[in-house]
């Protein structure tokens, strides 16, 4: 029997025993070394699903306080209506802005984890994002943490779990459009679920904006031998329509002048 067929039989056998058995297996992972976290990873999805580990639940809406929630719901509605009009809102990605934290950890594209003495570095292919987690260091006071896209992260190992705390996220850096204060904290508990799957349990705490901590989990599957690509956001032809505020696409290559029938001089910058 070939390896593939044996693997398929194993998958079917596990499927046939039902998801409950799978959950039990997932909850008692074999001991995995900290070093297993090194390497390239993909967001865990059905394409690579291991029947023993359930997919992560969708991220719930942010538990915003009523005043902020009304504003957030209005934004969501405006975005939906703009899509329906065919004029999607001009957002961060079109402006070449990276996700920042915690959105970076959704792993839009493959991600790489590197461990060196005293530091764990996570690189997300999309928008060349890099975050550094300093091990066994004291977290900075909020007032000393210069606001940024990925903030200031410290971490330590508690058994098989990497416990990380992040502060110093710019108020403009918003996950799912949720507003937050300068005091927002992001706590993560990262652990291997099997030798090729790990999870990141995220808790966003911000009593000024949230009625309760915002909790969600992301999971990742190893992407063997994958080499992270460079990602420089350049010469995006999407621009903001000054009339509607929505995204438009410039026709014609930058500098080419286009051809006679093309509005190559459409408004908008060649580069955002």
């Amino acid at each position, binding site marked *: 029997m070939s390896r593939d067929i044996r693997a398929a039989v194993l998958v079917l056998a596990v499927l046939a025993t039902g998801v409950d058995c799978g959950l039990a297996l997932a909850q008692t992972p074999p001991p995995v070394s900290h070093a297993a976290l090194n390497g390239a990873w993909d967001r865990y999805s*059905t394409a690579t699903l291991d029947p023993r580990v359930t*997919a992560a639940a969708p991220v719930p809406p942010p538990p915003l306080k009523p005043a902020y929630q009304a504003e957030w719901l209005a934004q969501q509605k405006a975005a939906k209506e703009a899509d329906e009009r065919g004029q*999607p809102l001009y957002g961060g*990605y079109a402006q070449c802005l990276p996700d920042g934290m915690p959105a970076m950890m959704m792993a839009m594209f493959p991600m790489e984890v590197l461990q060196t003495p005293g530091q764990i570095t996570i690189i997300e292919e*999309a928008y060349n994002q890099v975050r550094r987690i300093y091990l066994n260091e004291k977290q900075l006071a909020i007032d000393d943490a210069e606001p940024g896209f990925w903030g200031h992260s410290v971490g330590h190992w508690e058994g098989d779990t990497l416990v990380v705390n992040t502060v110093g996220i710019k108020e403009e850096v918003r996950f799912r459009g949720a507003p937050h204060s300068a005091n927002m904290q992001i706590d993560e508990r990262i652990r291997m679920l099997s030798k090729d799957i790990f999870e990141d349990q995220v808790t966003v705490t911000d009593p000024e904006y949230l009625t309760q901590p915002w909790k969600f989990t992301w999971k990742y599957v190893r992407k063997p031998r994958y080499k992270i690509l460079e990602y420089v956001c350049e010469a995006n032809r999407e621009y903001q329509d000054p009339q509607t505020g929505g995204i438009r696409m*410039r026709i*014609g290559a930058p500098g*080419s002048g286009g*051809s*006679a029938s093309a509005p190559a001089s459409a408004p908008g910058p060649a580069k955002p």
Partner: protein
Amino acid sequence: MNRFTKHVARLAFAGLLLAGMSAQAHHSFAMFDHDHQIKISGTVTHFQWTNPHVYIDLDVPQDQGDLKHYTIECANPGILDRIGWKFNMIKVGDKITTIIAPLRTGEPGGLLKQVTLADGRKFENGGPAGKANIQ
């Protein structure tokens, strides 16, 4: 429904959620009309292999004999690499055929659904962009 089909249904549902989330997470494709796809053939005038989008510029002959210039948005180099594209597989002067979801504004541009190269090879534009619904 037995346990097996229930499990498969659950996985499929999770997959749909994930697919929806990833498309939403990266980019809205709402400026393109996915229901009224068109097929256009022409000569490549520019091939831009960049993030966050790859672009193909195409001069497309019209009935009256003149050329209409189209700009076609593709996914990004990473997504395209992972489905078998190569940075230099399209060159200026190549004659190619594309299926696109045209811009809703009516401007000559669209989102790539499928490209057929001069040598006959066909490529799609990655998961989030969706598939061609015409031949």
